[in-house]
C-alpha cells in the first residue's frame, strides 16, 4: 500500500522544497524558482490522479484499445501550466524593475535600503 504512494510523496517533496526556497532564500530569483517548484508539485499531483494502471492516453486516433486514463485532470493540468507561465512572466518583469531600482536582488539589502 505504502509503496504505491511514492508519486504522492514526490508531490509532497516538491512542494516542501519549493516552500523552503520561498521562505528562506534571500535571492528573489530563487524565490521565484521556489514558486515554480510548488506549482510543478501541484501539477504532478493532478496528473498523478489521472493515471489508471495499464491505461493509454484518452485519444481515439490509432488507439490500441484498452482502458484510458482520465481526461479531466490532464485538461486541468494544461490550464494550470498556462496560468503558471503567465504568473512567472509577471513576477520576472517585477523582479527586473526591482533590480532597476535597487541594483540588487538580495532581500536583506533591499530591506536595509528601505529603512
Amino acid at each position: 500500500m505504502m509503496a504505491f504512494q511514492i508519486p504522492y510523496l514526490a508531490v509532497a517533496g516538491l512542494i516542501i522544497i519549493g516552500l523552503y526556497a520561498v521562505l528562506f532564500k534571500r535571492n528573489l530569483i530563487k524565490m521565484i524558482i521556489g514558486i515554480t517548484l510548488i506549482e510543478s508539485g501541484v501539477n504532478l499531483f493532478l496528473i498523478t490522479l489521472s493515471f489508471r494502471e495499464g491505461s493509454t492516453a484518452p485519444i481515439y486516433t490509432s488507439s490500441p484499445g484498452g482502458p484510458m486514463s482520465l481526461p479531466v485532470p490532464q485538461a486541468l493540468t494544461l490550464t494550470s501550466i498556462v496560468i503558471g507561465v503567465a504568473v512567472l512572466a509577471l513576477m520576472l518583469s517585477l523582479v527586473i524593475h526591482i533590480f532597476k531600482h535597487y541594483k540588487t536582488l538580495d532581500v536583506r539589502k533591499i530591506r536595509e535600503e528601505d529603512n
Partner: protein
Amino acid sequence: MFEQILTHAPALAVAIPLLGAFLTPLVSKINGKLRNVFVVIITALTSFIVALLSYNILAHESVKFAPDLVKNGIQTYIFGAGSAGDPVVRIVFEVDGVNAFMIILAAILPLAAVIYSWGFMKDETGQDKYYTLILLLTAGMLGMMMTGDLFNFFVFLEITSIASAALIAYRVNNKFSVQAAFKYIVVSTIGALFVLFAIAILYGQYDALNMAVIAKSIQYGLLDKIALILLIVALAMKAGIAPMHMWLPEAYGRAPSSVTVVIIGTTLGSFYGILRVGFTIFGEQIISESNLEVGIALGWVLVGLAILTIFIGVLMALKQNDFKKMIGFAAVAEIGYMVLAFGAALATMYQDSVTGITGISSSGLTALKGGMFHILNDALDVSLLFLVAGAVYYVSKESSLNRLGGLARNMKYTTIFFIIGLVAVSGLPPLNGFASKLMIYQSTYEINPILAIVAILCSILLLATFVKVFYAAFLGPKLPKFENVKEVPKSMLIGMLVLTCVIIFIGLFPNLVVENIVTPAVTALQNASAYIGGI
C-alpha cells in the same frame, strides 16, 4: 426582452467585460476619448445586467421579471450544454442569494472606479492597457462570485491576482509600488496554488469539481479536513485576515486609488470563497450534531483571529503617516469586524434539546446578518475614502500627512465626501457603517460583553485616527504650496458621488436593505441543501 437577457445573464455578466477587455486595445488605436466612453459603456452595461440578475433572484416572487428561471431562489447556467444538460460534467454557474448579494458590490465598485479614472488617469501613459486590466479585473471578480465550479473559481482567482499585481505596479518609477506588487503576487500565487492543491484533493476523493456535487458526497474524512484547512487558510491569506495581512496595506496604499477600489472587491471575493467553502461545501458537516464542538471551537478561533485583525489594523493605522497606507490598515480592521461576526455566529451554535436539531441561535443570526451587511458597507466606505485620498494625491502629488494641510478651502466637495466616508467607516450614526456595526455589537454583546466592548473601543480609536487625518490634511493653515490647488475634475467627483449616494441611501434606509438584500443572502448561506439541490 428582459427575460432573454436574464436567461443568459450569468454568462453575459462575465462575458461582456471580457469582450470589452479584448476590444479595448483595438478601440484605443482609434481615439483615446472613444476608448474611455467605450469602457464606461461596457462597465455600465455589466452593472445593469448584474443588477437585473440580482434583482430577479432577490425580489419577491410576484415582482420578478422572469420567475421561471429562479428555482428555489437559485438560478443555474450550464455552459455549453444546449438543452440536454449534464451539469456534473460541465461548468455550472449557480447564483443563489449569497452570490446575488456579492455581485451587487461587483456592480457598483468598478463603475465608480472607471468614471473616476477618466479624470484621475488623464495625464498617465499606458491607459489602454490600464482600462483593459480594469475590465479583466471586473470580469474575474464577477466570475469568482458566481461560479459553481471549484476549478473555475481558481482560474478567476488567478485572473484577479495577475491583473491586480500588474495594476499595483502601475507607477513603476516608484520603487515601493513595484515592491508591493511583488509581495502581492508572491502571496496570492502561493495562496492560489494551495487552493488548487485542495481542489485536487477533493477531485481525487469524489471525482467531481462541481461545488454542489462535492457538497452532496462529502464524507468529512481526514483528507477532506486537510483540504478544508488548506482552502480556508489560503483564501484567508488572500482576504487579508491577520496574521497574513501584511501585503494588504502595502498593496492598497501603493496602487492608484481607482485600482484599489476594484482590488477591494476582489479581496471580498476571496472572503466570499471562505463563506462558500465553510457554509456550503462543508456546511452540513460543520453545522451538524456530530461536529457541534468542532464548529463551536472553529467559531472561537475565528473570533480570536478577528480580534487580532482589528487590533493590528487599528493600532497600525494610528501610527501611519502615509494617507493611503493608513486607510489600508483601517481596511484590515474592517475585515476583522466581518470575521468577528461570522465567528461569533458559529460560536453560538446549539443543539435543540427537544428536536435534537442543531442550528445557529437568534443572536448568532443577527451576527450573520450584521457580518453580511458589513461586507457591503465596508467595501463602499473604504472605497470612498481611497477615492478621496486619490483626489488629494491628484492635486498635491503628496501622500505623506506631514506635508499636507489646508486643503478644505479649495476642495469643498472632496472635503464633504471625506467627512461622509469618515463618519461611515467609523460607525457613527446616521450612515451605513453604524447600521451594520450596531448589529455586530448587539449580537456579540449577547455572546460575550467583552467582545462588544473591544469592538466598540477599536471603532472609537478608528474615529480618532480619521479625525487626526482630517485635521492634518484638510484643516489647518493654508500652505503656500497649495495656494493654487483647484477642485478635482468633474468625472472624479462623479465617481465619488456614486459611492456617496449608495452610502447615504443605505444609511437612511438600513431596514429596507437588511430585509430585501441581506436577509435572503443569510438564508441562502445557511441553506446548503438548497444549493446542493440546485443541480
